[in-house]
């Protein structure tokens, strides 16, 4: 497969992570180097018959909830900002177009 286009800025956006100009330049060298290294798996040919392992989701029954509020204080104590028994966040949905 051809050398992939690594748009570091776009990836940083997807990852919700700021990247400085300086770091961007370093990453534009480092990420393709890492990808070259892992691309060796492209050379592996897998027979369909060799796929043996199926994964299944393990879920528990949605029952027996714990008493509401018993962990609230402990959990809130770890949040950077809390008010009235709630975690404080910046507005996520805006009314502006």
């Amino acid at each position: 497969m051809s050398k992939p286009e690594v748009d570091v800025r776009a990836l940083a956006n997807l990852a919700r992570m700021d990247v400085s100009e300086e770091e961007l330049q370093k990453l534009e060298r480092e990420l393709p180097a890492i990808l070259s290294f892992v691309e060796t798996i492209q050379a592996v040919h897998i027979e369909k018959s060799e796929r043996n392992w199926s994964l299944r989701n393990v879920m528990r029954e949605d029952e027996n909830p714990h008493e509401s509020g018993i962990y609230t204080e402990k959990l809130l104590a770890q949040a950077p900002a809390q008010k009235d028994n709630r975690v404080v966040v910046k507005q996520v949905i805006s009314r502006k177009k």
Partner: protein
Amino acid sequence: MDLAKLTIKEARRALDAKEYSAVELTDAYLDAIKKKDGDIHAYVEVWEKEARAQAQRADEKIARGESRLLTGIPMAIKDNILVESNIAAAGSKMLETYRATYDATVIEKLKAEGAVFLGRANMDDAAMGSSTETSHFGITKNPHDHARVPGGSSGGPAAAVAANMALASLGSDTGGSIRQPAALCGVVGLKPTYGAVSRYGLIALASSFDQIGPFGKTVADTEVVFEAIRGHDPRDSTSLPDLQQDASRPKKIGVPRAFLEKGSEPDVLAAFETKLSQLRTRGYEIIDIDLPYTPYSLAVYYIIQPAEASTNLARYDGVRYAHTVPSETVGEMYAKTRATGFGREVRRRILIGTFVLSSGYADAYYRKARAVQDAIRTEFVRMFEYVDAIATPTTPAPAFKFGEKSDPVAMYAEDIFTVPANIAGVPAISVPMGDVERDGTKLPTGFQIIAPHRAEEVLFTIGRDVEGTV
């Protein structure tokens, strides 16, 4: 008591015979930490007051005749395992002030045993690394040579045991993070079968690889801790059901020669060969085997692990835990919090993970890696129909110097012999196999044994024979 000679077995005997108390034993370790850890820095935080209180309760348990195998035994706990009310920072600025709101299952089990927790042990940032150099809290030094790394990401737990600042410790292994530091520090380290030990309360890195496991000075000590922490846990959906394992004696050990000779230092290979000869005299049959897919494990790992890590670390958004950078908008808060809370290696791997999961690339990278993982796992299962265990050196070389592996890919290559076991989900152990010399200093090396799923017993049996031939 002589901490250098002490084992869990001996401490148990002496404690139950009242030769010394659990408080005296804990004090001896706290003293050792005061004397040596200013230099080595295996611990991020020492829990002196709590440790003494736990030791006191252990003494009461012993006095009532209720001592269990680990009652009063002083241990170090890796910084990514939750101990309620204590900080669990996973070596990261992101969680620098985070206090655990519950006990990990393994901690609950150790508390029931009456073990003593001396403190939280240092690790690479978010468990990403093979040297503990990326810890937000500073480096840990290899007790055998202070100019060299202890390995990672569980460098702290390994160094604590190696320097007699803990009698045993808990680490975690995702790509070799217990076994590689065990090898570099000259102690025993076990990665259990995926699912054998509960991950509830382990700060997640790569959820399909992570396992908590013990460090000990001997195979027997490591086995004792494993027995205490293993078991099905309904709170971990990937936890395996309890199983009585068939304990038939292992006889055949497979060695994938072509694979391990690539890039291994000659004296490490020589030490490995010597160990194999010694095992032959103990009645083992050593067979050359070929594992054609296994050499792809490293590439598979550095696709799947960053993918899972990027997903797991998405939860660190400045809203619910510790580190945050208050900003005008929620998007800015995410972006600034995550840019400043994670170290360079973590940011690098998050971006790799984002890439291999992204539209247009996920098939070629992530899904292909999963297919190759399938093939590697099948290869192991089939090979174990012919041999009882597989052996390799744990690492291609002894401990390297600080700053020596600044190129990310060079650092990743440290994991070449350890990642296959994580990819296949099988258990593996590193046992010291003798020293090699670098710049006039003797440095430990490790002998890795890999066993079939659920066959930790095989690791302990062969491991004891590896030990016995020193």
